[in-house]
């Protein structure tokens, strides 16, 4: 009975009330994953489970037995930042930095969804290949609130990081 968190096996909590978010923050001192609302309304607690983005505040840790969880602490390769982390710095995709880990994890999950062909609310054609236009990125990232108003920088950072994938898709479209 354990969860793999950034590659390390962690025992499930005894108390089933403990959310995945509180397990990370209280139990493991992995406080990079943030608590903004604790009700699934802000996205600050976004982590990746088997590569899919979820809000960890609404996830009871006991439900994730045997799953692989990646948090913001698991993205960088030692001293080398993940390209998206660097792009957030380059494009000033944050101010206070509190929503940032969630935005970054969410964007990584989003890229995988787009690659898989998952359409979005703003996709005109549900069956076409996904082209990550600015509007598509905005819709797909709308589950992550930012109150400092760094939205432009965040989208710019994601666009730059996914540039090769976007270009390929646009050429194919």
């Amino acid at each position, binding site marked *: 009975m354990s969860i793999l968190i950034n590659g390390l096996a962690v025992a499930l909590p005894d*108390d089933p*009330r*403990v959310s995945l978010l*509180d397990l990370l*923050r*209280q139990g493991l001192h992995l*406080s*990079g*994953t*943030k*608590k*903004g*609302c*604790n*009700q*699934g*309304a*802000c996205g*600050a607690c976004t982590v990746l489970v088997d590569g899919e983005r979820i809000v960890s505040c609404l996830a009871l840790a006991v439900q994730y037995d045997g799953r692989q969880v990646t*948090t*913001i*602490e698991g*993205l*960088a390769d030692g001293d080398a*930042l993940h390209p998206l*982390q*660097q792009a*957030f*710095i*380059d494009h*000033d995709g*944050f*101010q*206070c*930095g*509190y*929503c*940032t*880990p969630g935005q*970054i994890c969410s964007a990584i999950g989003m890229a995988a969804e787009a690659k898989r062909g998952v359409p979005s609310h*703003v996709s005109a054609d549900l069956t076409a290949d996904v082209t990550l236009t*600015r*509007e598509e*990125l*905005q*819709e797909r*990232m*709308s589950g*992550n*609130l*930012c*109150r*400092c*108003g*760094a*939205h*432009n*920088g*965040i*989208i710019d950072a994601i666009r730059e990081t996914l540039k090769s994938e976007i270009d390929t898709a646009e050429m194919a479209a």
Partner: protein
Amino acid sequence: MSIVDTLKETAQGLVQGAMSKLVPLAPDSWIPGGVPDPLIRQQHGLIGTSVSRLDGPLKVRGAAPFAAEFPLEGMVYAALAYATIPRGRIAAIDTAAAEAAPGVVLVMTHLNAPRMNTPAVFGSSPTAAGPADLPIMQDDRVHWNGQPIAVVLAETQEHADHAKSLIVATYAAEPSTTSLAAAKAEGPQPGLFMGQPLLNEIGDADAMLAAAPHKVDHVYRTPRHNHNAIEPHAATIAWVGDELIVHDATQLVTAEAQTIADVFDLKAEQVRVTSPFVGGGFGGKCLWDHQILGAAAAKLAGRPVRITLTREGVYRVVGGRTLTEQRVAIGADADGRFKALVHTGIAAMTPHNNMPEPFILGTRGGYAADSFKLSVETVKMNMLANTFMRAPGESVGTFALESAIDELAVELDMDPIALRIRNEPDKDPTSGLPFSSRHIVEAWRSGAARFGWDERSAEPGTRREGEWLIGMGCATGTYPYYRMPGAAARITLRRDGHALVEIAAHEMGMGTSTTTAMVAADRLGLPLDRVSVGYGDSIIPGTILAGGSQQTAAIGAAVIAAHHALVAELLKLAGNDSRLAGLAPDEVGSEDGGLAKLDDPTRRESYVSILERAQRESVVVSEEASQPLELMHWSMHSHSALFCEVRVNAVTGETRVSRFLGAFDCGRILNPKTARSQFRGGIVMGLGMALMEETQFDERNGRIMNPSLAEYHVPVHLDVPEIDVIWTDIADPHTPMGAHGVGEIGITGVAAAVANAIYNATGKRVRDLPITLDKVMI
């Protein structure tokens, strides 16, 4: 408000009154900023270059420690229970089940809370930071619906939260005022802001309005707002012997430490407040009940406490922006010149605080007019104390004023930009002071050209693409340049040529730590990597509030003062063997890692050399900034020209902002990268205010009914267009570095620009915020 407060405010008013008569008449050279800061002229420094946030790597790794992320040995977790009536007494509170619940350490109520003094309410002294003039959990009184009535401490947050839900309180309700209509019926009172009356009367505005050939006269309404920083308020608190440590998320470490010390009868130095990272503030991250309750509970338990407000708790404990009802009436002649400018109305506040939303501040210096009548009156409601929220006054005041100007432009059949420029004043129209720096017309011209304003049709409802009606609107934003007294800086220059600059300031995302390093590096003549910045800690000398967009100026002036002291100290150490020997501090400046004579740079010596020769490891200076007399000598403001394009759905009334441009006149921009983000951030919050934000206050019982990020809407990614930002970059000759703070100017005017664009798109004039689709459906 208590009699004591009234006396204090009167006293402050008297002193300020005397000063305000003398300072304007003094020669410029006696005034800080009277001699331009040499850094304004410097061409090849860091100032003006785009520097990425120095704390960026920490933040993108999730490694920046926020207030709720300091682990302490033996720490317990707190949960709060809240009152459910607006006014009355707690008749009984049953905590037995909570105390018996698993993991519970204790339950604190007014019955067992330590005795504490009432925190001094903000504004009653320079270091007072209390949210209201109310004791905290000292008696059975309930003053607002949502007031904390109990604190549970438990071994885990889950235990604390559960136990809190088991507390049962019964109340003896007393008559309360929770509707605006009832509050108005009790009679408005004159508004006082920072001890000064919110009232200006110049000429007979009523008569001139009546006589004017063209006029508009309407009432505009703005609702309550909440800051909604994504980081909920939190503090990790420990008593270490007689000392109290508060790891907090706060915008005022020093004032908070002093106020908490007074609450617990401690000396200021017995309380240390740290705040290294603040997850968004916007005026909301100040001292509220939770830090004091956390400290009291920690004292009672003898263990460290982590108190994190739930999102609901933030709405119950931390006040927001209050509602306003504003009348704006403008009378103009046929050329559009203002004969009368009337901006009056009411703001709701509580019997226990002193924050009347000062919505006329921006109107005081905005436009020339032959007569003025400006006033804010307050009505009292039984509710949580309202407070500052990003550009208090100007955010909502500019909505009314700049909407009214747009309405007048329609009435006059005149371009709204031309109308504004026609009424451009040559000196401050209400104070009579000269402007320190005002280039709003340039901002208008460059912004209009870049935005393509000339493509706008003045006729509403004439541009349509499918279901979407397209319109453009504009508005002026304005926010004062402030610099508050009490700032200080401490510089530690080491023999290895590295400088540590410490300021009791705050990093809430504005980029303060980065910009301070840049400014200090240029001031000291050091490269950026030789300067480190310490901040967010009350043990650092001085008092700097992260508010009023004044941090940059306060830090700038403090660093100037400390640098001056450093030069004097280094000259002493340099002694007679130096090429600097015999020079006075005023003859010497910093450059290239050392000191040099200003008019003869060959007479120089490096810091390293001075310290080595003096056999000193380091030299430390600490100095307080000059008094901000410049604020009484010049009229000092930032400005913006805002352009908005909206698409309004003709079927549903939904509004989408498709383009936005802000052209800013805010002195010299220190770090374009972070400044652009500040401007954009303000604009995004303004878009929220324009279209969706409202704190739902149930007038039947004073309860906030949407205390959540699901029900209180802030803009999401899809609501935010690409926001274009440009600036004049003209230095204000009378400020440190020629700069202005830029944290609040961004939000001002935005709601009006949106409303005016919606009018242009649809012909529908909405005077109530937020402009939700039901108000626009046509």
